[in-house]
């Protein structure tokens, strides 16, 4: 059981769907959505929210800074 629970919020309209966050995630939380945003990009979203540990790797590698990361101690 992970000590920390995390969550990310993606600004889906600004996401360009480059997929760098998908490969940077150590717990494979993020996937590109089937849907597209207003610009036609498959935006990133949390496909597997339970696995997120809030490490902020995705936020660091995101070129458009659309990811906000939250983390709290697991109860």
């Amino acid at each position: 059981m992970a000590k920390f629970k995390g969550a990310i919020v993606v600004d889906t309209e600004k996401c360009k769907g480059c997929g760098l966050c998908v490969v940077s995630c150590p717990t494979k939380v993020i996937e590109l959505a089937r849907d597209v945003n207003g610009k036609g990009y498959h935006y990133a979203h949390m496909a597997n929210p339970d696995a997120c540990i809030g490490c902020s790797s995705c936020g660091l590698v995101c070129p458009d800074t659309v990811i906000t990361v939250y983390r709290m101690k697991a109860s």
Partner: protein
Amino acid sequence: MTATTELKNIISEENKVYGKTSVLLDNEMHYCPGCTHGVIHKAIAEVIEDMDIQEETIGVSPVGCSVLAYNYLDIDWQQAAHGRAPALATATTRLMPEKYVFTYQGDGDLASIGCAEIMHACNRGENIVVFFVNNGIYGMTGGQMAPTTLEGQVTATSPYGRDCQTTGFPMKISEMVSLLPGTRYVTRESAETAGAVRKLKKAVKKAFANTRENKGLSFIEIVGTCSSGWKQTPVQSNEWMKEHMFPYYPLGTLKDE
């Protein structure tokens, strides 16, 4: 507790560990998906926020994709003629020695047309920071061959791969400037993983600290990607960079005095 209520509990202001810094403006970046420029802009912005030097920083933007950097970082900016950013930064830092002056240049700007300016600025040891983004290609103009293009690399103007017999060899600018006595800190970084971004931020912090202590020129080369120019996806181009760029442009600090 259901999954949605649990997520709602986590997503609150006191649990926020990473988000957009206030130094970055809300404008949407014009860069292609996965462009390294975005990561480097962010790293510089976060360091400026950490060091609390937003009011004292002046950037000089180049000609190239990053010409519009002044739309993204909330600091003072100037825009230089092609390759002349170090000359403009020299004037700025001499007139306002208390400011943190940096240039942000690509490889077409710095290594090709601005080669003389950067060499002489490094030789004079001006008190500035130089960010040199090396992606081995002219990104903005359509992926032509740059001085840093690798041997055999296919670009718009070298469709059969770069032939070093006729076009010379890829230039190792960081190695060249590290030999000049004016430079104090020369390093080569990358920005493809979270670890690399953290290392880059450390280097940026050190470079601005050198400026504060009036130590001389700090030169940070960042090996980056140009997925549009390389005709690959962002994830593929990161792999290509690790496989081909890193052996020729090895990462690490070349000079730290």
